[in-house]
Structure formats: structure tokens, C-alpha cells
């Protein structure tokens, strides 16, 4: 195993193994990654210094060490993390024990399994491209083993070409291979990384930083009309109970009454990223939706079945709706206050004609109050621990959406008007390339809902009332602007610089990738295939077989078709010469070499001996000689052309 040939194969193999395990450095415990790196480094050193390869005893010790490491991390060997670690350690140990060609194959196969395990952690387009590239290197290792001479580039090229040729077939199988959900017992712990998101309670006074994360929450693709920015409110948990500081949900199982809808129907596909809650943020107000979604008493959509997975939902919403009358218990929860409001607040409500005017008039009064008084919008408000509503309204006057929404609802309730806080997302950035909206954590928002006679619940967004010049946080400004709340200069928002455009292009590719590849489950599959009239398992299999067969035929045609007339021009000229001699009754047999034939020909035609020999020598030089030039060929061609038999029979 020490010839230069094997050295190069080993370098190839170790490099590709290193490349495969590298992205796992963020997924596996540092101790295990360190162990693997040590094994790999050791093996790399042994390519040049084979005497340092571990003995059987050392290997045994290393194996024990690996097992102890593994058990200290997991205590069992099932599940994604433990399984991945097991394969990586096995790969590391096997590297030190490469003795025969068989072991190289085993290492390669283990590396493929580790590559698959990477997808259990990350399914991005980038990761897929990376793995594809490393697969080419792994296959190139096999090419190198099976070649007589190793040219690194040639091996890589061969492997890449074959992998590329395999891609159409892969796509066909991917589309048509039946997707069946694995039975429950087979699912090991599938913990999803906790994602930051909205929580089921809100405590404006105790938060001093919110919603600056650019993390994607969901994407929406509309099939028809796209709602204008001011209507893009994505409904999340409704908070109707407050203890003065904290706002929490009160559970209602199902909507009390079905609202009546009017206006434009917005149909869309909502692609939810993974989250730890079971909420789906429908456009205010979702009317039609399919399983597994249900609606709770606050018209919020909930996925009860498998909420933590990234999933796609078809929803239709209406921007105009009437939720009808309130029930008694609903009314009670919607005017609930923890204690008698302070005199200052009562005074403010009185001042705003809260007790002697219509509810809609009060709404305008309060919004005007926010607008005219010295209220500021900021993402980093001062903490208001003790009496947050009072502090906010009368002393600090700084806050973000939650402060405004909670203060607004509180004031409405003081005036005995049913009101509640709605949390969710607002706005979203439109991706022009992919024609969809992206809603990020930074779009998190809180607004208010007020119940009005004959109108039902009506959305009021007090944050929108803040005077634009008082907005302190530049980052969020961009969001609000895109959301349509605040407009400074309409031209600015429309301008897209190339950086933004590139980002949108990428986001679009990523969206399509998530939608069509990562998210391609049995539902998507049957939807997609039914467009082509494939409805049942049997036709699916028939199509699979037919297309794979067709692809094979195309590929074999492409690979195996060779031009018939590809013979050497030198040989063709020589054959012309032979044909001329045939006229004299001299036929070159298959087994007769050029020299033998020339000998026979000169004996038979002594008068042509000189030229026959000249042609034969030139032919041998051109066909078998080491150095041939274009002039040589020209000379040969002239000789053959000029060769003529005398008519005189010998």
C-alpha cells in the first residue's frame, strides 16, 4: 500500500472524507469532532510515514475510547445525533485501518452515509450543492482506484460527468418514487431547534428589545390578488387577559359564530418554517383552510397534527368581515381589568370623551392623543416594571407596538368597550423574483381589536398613529415603511439596489428549493402528479419504470453511439494504395503486415519496387513512428496519389 499510486488514492480519499465531515463540526459535540480530526490527521501523516500506523492493540484502545466518548454524550445509540456520531467515529477509526482496496470502498460507503446524515441537520440549497460536489470527489476516488494511471483531473472529470449524467434519472426517481410517511415507532427523537418567535404572552414593560431578527418565519405566495401593504396583518395569538403587566391568552375552543365575509378573496399558499408553536399566521381574517388546520375562538389558525415541521398550507382570507355578536363570556373577558384603574387614567379617558361618546369616536380620540402628544416609537424603550400602562402613558411615552397596543386596549376597556390585543406579523417583504412575500421575525407586531356594534371585531393599529418623525429606530423604519404604515418618500422604497436584488434572487431560489424539493411530501406529490393524470400507486410505478427505461435508452444512445467512419486518414490513404495494387492481382490479406505485403509486391512488380517501398516506409513511419509531422503526411498523400501501375502485365 505504499506505492505512489496508493498514496495518491489515499490522499484523494482522506480529502473527500474530511470535506464530508467538515460541515458536521457545528452539529456534533466538540469532543467527538476533535477525536475524528485527530484520526484523520494521524492517517494523513501516515500517508508519508506508514511506520506510525497504529498497531492492533492501539486500535482496540482507540475503539474503546471512541465508545466511551459516544456513551458519555448520548447514553444510547439510537436517534439522529447518536447515529451520526456513531458513523463519524466509525469512519475515523476505519481510516486508520485501511489495508486493502476493500477497506477503501468501505470508507467511501461510510462517507456517503455521513453525507446523508448532514441533510438531517441542514437542507439548504447550499448544503445540497456542497454534498453534490463532495460526492463527485468520492466517486473520483473510486475512478482512481480502478484506473491504471491516476490523473487527478481526469478522475475528477470522469466522476463529475457520470454524476451529471445521473442527475436526470435522479430527478425522475425523486418525483415518482412513492413517499410514505414512516410509522410512528420508527421516528426517533426529532427535536427541532427552538426558534425565536412570538410567545403566548406579552409583557411590554419588561421587554427592552424586540423583533430585530431577520430570521424567516414564513413565506406567502398569492395565487390571485396580493393585498395592499396596509392590509397585510398576519394573525397570531390573541391576548385578552391582563394582570396589569402581562397579557395572556384565554382559551376558546372554536369560533362562537361564523363571520360573514365580503370584499376581495385572497388565496395563497403559506410555507411555514419550523417553529416550536402550533400557530399558523393566516392573513386577517382566514376564512377557508384545509386539514390539518383548525381555527380557535380567536380566528387564529392552529395546526394540531404535526405543527413543528416545515409545512405548506392553502388558505383563503377576506379583508372585510363581520364577526357578529359577542357572547356573554366573550364580553366578560374583553372588558376585563385587573383592578380599578388609576385616577390619572380615568381622567384621561374622561378628557378624551371616553364615557360620553361613541366607541369609534373614542378610537379616533386615543389615536389623536398618541399622535399629538410627545409619544415616540422605539425598539429599546426604558423598562417599566411597576405600573407599565401608567408609566407609558404619562411619563416615558416611549415604546414599540406592544406598548401602544396594550395601552390602547387598556383605555378602551376603561371606557367599557370590548377590546383585546392581537399579536402576529405585519407587512412582509415582497420578493419580486419569486413573486412571494417573506415574513421575518422583525415583522412581529401587536395591534388591537375593538368590538363595535354591527361590525364585530375591528382591527385598530395604534402604532400606525405615531408621528413618523418620532420613530427612533432606523432598522424598523424600513420594515414599517415596507409594511405601509409610514411613508416618508415613496420613491425610496421602490428603489432596489443590486445587492437587494441579488438577495431576492437567492431568496427566491431558496423558496423554490424549500417548496419543491425539501417540502415534497406525499400530499405535494399526489397534487403534482395528478396534474399529469397520475392518480394511483400503480400508474405511478408504471410511469417510473417507463421514464427510467426511456432515460436509459437515451443515455445509452448518447454514450454508445460512435461514428463509423472515424478511421485514421493515414490508414485510409494506405487502403487506397492497396486498392491500386489489387488491380495487379495483389491482394493484401488480413494477416499480412505492410512490410510483408511490400515484399510480395516488389517481387511481383519489380519495376515499381522503388515507389512501393517508399510508400510503405512512409506509411510505417506515420502510423507507428514516434514523431510525425504534417509535412510527412502531405508527402505520403502525394506519393499515394502519384502511384500508378503500368498497364504491362508482369
Amino acid at each position, binding site marked *: 500500500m505504499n506505492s505512489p499510486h496508493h498514496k495518491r488514492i489515499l490522499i484523494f480519499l482522506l480529502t473527500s472524507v474530511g470535506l464530508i465531515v467538515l460541515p458536521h463540526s457545528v452539529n456534533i459535540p466538540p469532543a467527538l469532532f476533535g477525536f475524528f480530526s485527530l484520526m484523520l490527521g494521524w492517517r494523513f501523516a501516515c500517508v508519508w510515514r506508514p511506520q506510525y500506523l497504529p498497531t492492533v492493540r492501539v486500535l482496540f484502545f482507540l475503539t474503546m475510547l471512541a465508545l466511551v466518548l459516544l456513551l458519555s454524550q448520548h447514553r444510547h445509540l439510537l436517534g*439522529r445525533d447518536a447515529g451520526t456520531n456513531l458513523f463519524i467515529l466509525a469512519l475515523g477509526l476505519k481510516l486508520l485501518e485501511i489495508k486493502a*482496496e*476493500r477497506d477503501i*470502498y*468501505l470508507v467511501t*460507503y461510510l462517507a*456517503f*452515509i455521513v*453525507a*446523508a*446524515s448532514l*441533510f*438531517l441537520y441542514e*437542507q439548504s440549497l447550499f*448544503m*445540497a450543492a456542497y*454534498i*453534490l460536489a463532495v*460526492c463527485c470527489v468520492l*466517486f473520483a476516488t*473510486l*475512478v482512481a*482506484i*480502478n*484506473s*491504471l*494511471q491516476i490523473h487527478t483531473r481526469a478522475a475528477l472529470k*470522469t*466522476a463529475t460527468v*457520470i*454524476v451529471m*449524467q*445521473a*442527475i436526470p*434519472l*435522479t430527478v425522475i*426517481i*425523486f418525483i415518482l*418514487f412513492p413517499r*410514505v*410517511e*414512516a410509522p410512528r415507532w*420508527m*421516528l*426517533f427523537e426529532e427535536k427541532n431547534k427552538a426558534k425565536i418567535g412570538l410567545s403566548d404572552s406579552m409583557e411590554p414593560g419588561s421587554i427592552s428589545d424586540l423583533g430585530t431578527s431577520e430570521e424567516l418565519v414564513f413565506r406567502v405566495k398569492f395565487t390571485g390578488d396580493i393585498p395592499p401593504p396596509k392590509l397585510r396583518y398576519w394573525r397570531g395569538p390573541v391576548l385578552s387577559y391582563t394582570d396589569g403587566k402581562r397579557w395572556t391568552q384565554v382559551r376558546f375552543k372554536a369560533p362562537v359564530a361564523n363571520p360573514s365575509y365580503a370584499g376581495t378573496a385572497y388565496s395563497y399558499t403559506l410555507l411555514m418554517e419550523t417553529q416550536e408553536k402550533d400557530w399558523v399566521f393566516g392573513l386577517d381574517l382566514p376564512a377557508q383552510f384545509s386539514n390539518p388546520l383548525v381555527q380557535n375562538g380567536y380566528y387564529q389558525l392552529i395546526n394540531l397534527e404535526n405543527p413543528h415541521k416545515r409545512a405548506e398550507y392553502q388558505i383563503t382570507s377576506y379583508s372585510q368581515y363581520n364577526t357578529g355578536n359577542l357572547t356573554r363570556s366573550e364580553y366578560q373577558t374583553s372588558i376585563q381589568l385587573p383592578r380599578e384603574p388609576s385616577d390619572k387614567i380615568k381622567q384621561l379617558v374622561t378628557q378624551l370623551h371616553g364615557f360620553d361618546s361613541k366607541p369609534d369616536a373614542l378610537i379616533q380620540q386615543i389615536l389623536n392623543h398618541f399622535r399629538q402628544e410627545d409619544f415616540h416609537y422605539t425598539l429599546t424603550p426604558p423598562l417599566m416594571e411597576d405600573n407599565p400602562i401608567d408609566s407609558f402613558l404619562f411619563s416615558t411615552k416611549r415604546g414599540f407596538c406592544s406598548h401602544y397596543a396594550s395601552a390602547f386596549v387598556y383605555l378602551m376597556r376603561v371606557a367599557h368597550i370590548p377590546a383585546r390585543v392581537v399579536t402576529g406579523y405585519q407587512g412582509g417583504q415582497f420578493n419580486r423574483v419569486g413573486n412571494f412575500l417573506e415574513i421575518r421575525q422583525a415583522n412581529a407586531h401587536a395591534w388591537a381589536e375593538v368590538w363595535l356594534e354591527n361590525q364585530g371585531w375591528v382591527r385598530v393599529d395604534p402604532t400606525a398613529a405615531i408621528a413618523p418623525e418620532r420613530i427612533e429606530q432606523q432598522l424598523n423604519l424600513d420594515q414599517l415603511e415596507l409594511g405601509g404604515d409610514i411613508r416618508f418618500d415613496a420613491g425610496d422604497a421602490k428603489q432596489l439596489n443590486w445587492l437587494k436584488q441579488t438577495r431576492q434572487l437567492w431568496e427566491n431560489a431558496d423558496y423554490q428549493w424549500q417548496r419543491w*424539493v*425539501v*417540502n415534497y*411530501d406525499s400530499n405535494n406529490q399526489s397534487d403534482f402528479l395528478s396534474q399529469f393524470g397520475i392518480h394511483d400507486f400503480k400508474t405511478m410505478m408504471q410511469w417510473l419504470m417507463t421514464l427510467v427505461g426511456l432515460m*436509459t435508452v437515451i*443515455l*445509452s444512445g448518447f*454514450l*454508445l453511439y*460512435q*461514428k463509423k467512419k*472515424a*478511421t485514421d486518414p493515414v490508414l485510409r490513404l494506405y487502403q487506397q494504395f492497396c486498392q491500386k495494387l489489387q488491380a495487379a492481382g495483389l491482394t493484401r490479406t*488480413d*494477416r499480412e503486415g505492410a512490410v510483408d505485403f511490400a515484399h510480395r509486391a516488389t517481387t511481383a512488380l519489380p519495376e515499381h519496387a522503388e515507389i512501393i517501398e517508399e510508400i510503405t516506409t512512409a506509411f510505417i513511419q506515420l502510423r507507428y513512428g514516434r514523431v510525425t509531422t504534417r509535412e510527412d503526411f502531405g508527402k505520403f498523400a502525394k506519393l499515394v496519389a502519384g502511384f500508378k501501375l503500368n498497364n504491362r502485365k508482369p
Partner: protein
Amino acid sequence: MDDAITLTHRRIFILPTKRGGGMGLLIVILLLIAFVYNNNLAYLLTFLIASVFFITILHTFKSMAGLVVQAGQTKAVFAGEAAGFDIHIDNPNAVERPHLQIKLSKPQSFFLNPHSKTTQTLYSPTQKRGWHNAGTVTVFSTYPFGLFYAWSPLRFNTNALVYPKPSTLELPFPETPSADAELGVNHKGADDFYGLQEYQAGDSIKHIHWKAFAKGQGIFSKQYSGNGTAAEVWLHYDYAAGHDTEQRLSQLCRWVIDAERADIRYGLVLPNLKLMPDNGANHYRQCLEALALL
């Protein structure tokens, strides 16, 4: 003689190797991982590897298809030596053949550039005199990944002539009476092998008794009676020592070799044939052929 054989789909067989079987197992494991975790990218990787595995069949086939294989010359050998068969392999296409193998008893590797040819000499051990058939020549390839084994068994009607194994016994040439009275010549005593004498400068190199020299017994010249005129022996089947035909032929073979080396004119008398005394490469071959084919 044999025609050239072009390797086409009728002649090329393909089966997965053990390593190919291993990859099949890998695909099953990957499919299971993809299924359990319901992970589409794991599915994608599985299908990619499965597709590569599948089209490797085509590539392995392609690594051999179109080759033109032709049996070439053979060289006669003595029994016990390995007979060599020349096999010409021509690559008439514009594709490179990075790794081909051919075997009779032991595999040999080679590669072919586009539009080029090579000649591989395959050896097959011999035991018996007579015609030795090449048997089945197998051209095979596992290129590019070693996952599939494509092979083409080729039977050429080509034979190598195997001469009897020369006896190891050092016997002097037989003292034969005139083998052919009709000719009326009796060279007995005239140009006969007389004995050995220590080498002296000037002795013909052809007369050196190489066997003795090889055994480290010193340099001896073979001496012939008759004053330098060509000696002549009759190598007679009946006078050759041995219990059976093979032993006798073996002894005759030894004598033919020795006589040719010693530059003696020798005639061969076999039960079915008689070759007049002569020497030289042609005669030598004729005699050995007669011995081989008796």
C-alpha cells in the same frame, strides 16, 4: 486462421462485483434513513447514488465495447514451459480505454489510447507435447468504479506447438548403423562425435560443451572424428533409451537439440517418418515438429 472478433453487446456480459453488492446495501441503508426521517434531500442523495450505480453499467460496457480482438502468432515451446499467445487488441474508436484487463491464466492490465492497438502476450502452462489450444481468453473491465464486472470470453482456434520435454540424461549420440542402405553412404566413423577435450583457443564456439560448462566442470570442446568435415548422426527412434514412447521422444528431442548446437548434420528416423540428415533452423524445427506430433 482466426478472424478478428469485435466486442459487441452479444459478446459482453455484465454482473455486479462484490463491491457493487456493497453499494446496493449502501443504497438500501440510505433509503431507510431517508424514509425514517422523511428527509427529501436524503432521498435525493440516495436516488443520485442509485442512478450513478445504474448508469455505471453503461459505462462499464462502454469501456469494452467496440474493441477488436484478434489472435496473433504463437511460439512453439518445450513441454513444461508456458506457451505464449499473442493477442492483438485494437481500439478503433475515438474513446480512451483507461483500464482493460485480459487473462488466460493470470490477468494483465493495459490501457489503450483512441485509435491505437496493443499486443498482449498471454501465457498458458503446458504439460504434454502436441498442439496446445489457447483455451478461453477473457477480456474484462471493471472501469470506472469497480462496481460492475464486464467480461467477454473469447475462444480462438489458435494452437501452440509443444515439443517433447528434452531429456535431462546426458547420453552420447547413438551408434547407428547406416539408416539408409539405399543411399549407399555410410558416414560411420567419418564425422562422428568422438569425445570431449579441454577447450583450446581456436576451437569453434559451436563445439563448446555448454552443458558441462554450465555444471561448472570446465570448458570442453566436443571433438569429432573426421578431419573437420561435417559430422553426421542418425537419431533413430529404436535406439533411443526409454520405457515408453514419451521417454524415447524426450531422448530424441535432447539429441536433436544437442546435435543442432554441436552443428552436426543429423537425420531423424521415426516409426512413421524419416528426415534426411541436415542441420540449420529449418531442419531443427522440422525435427522437433515431427517429434511433437508423433
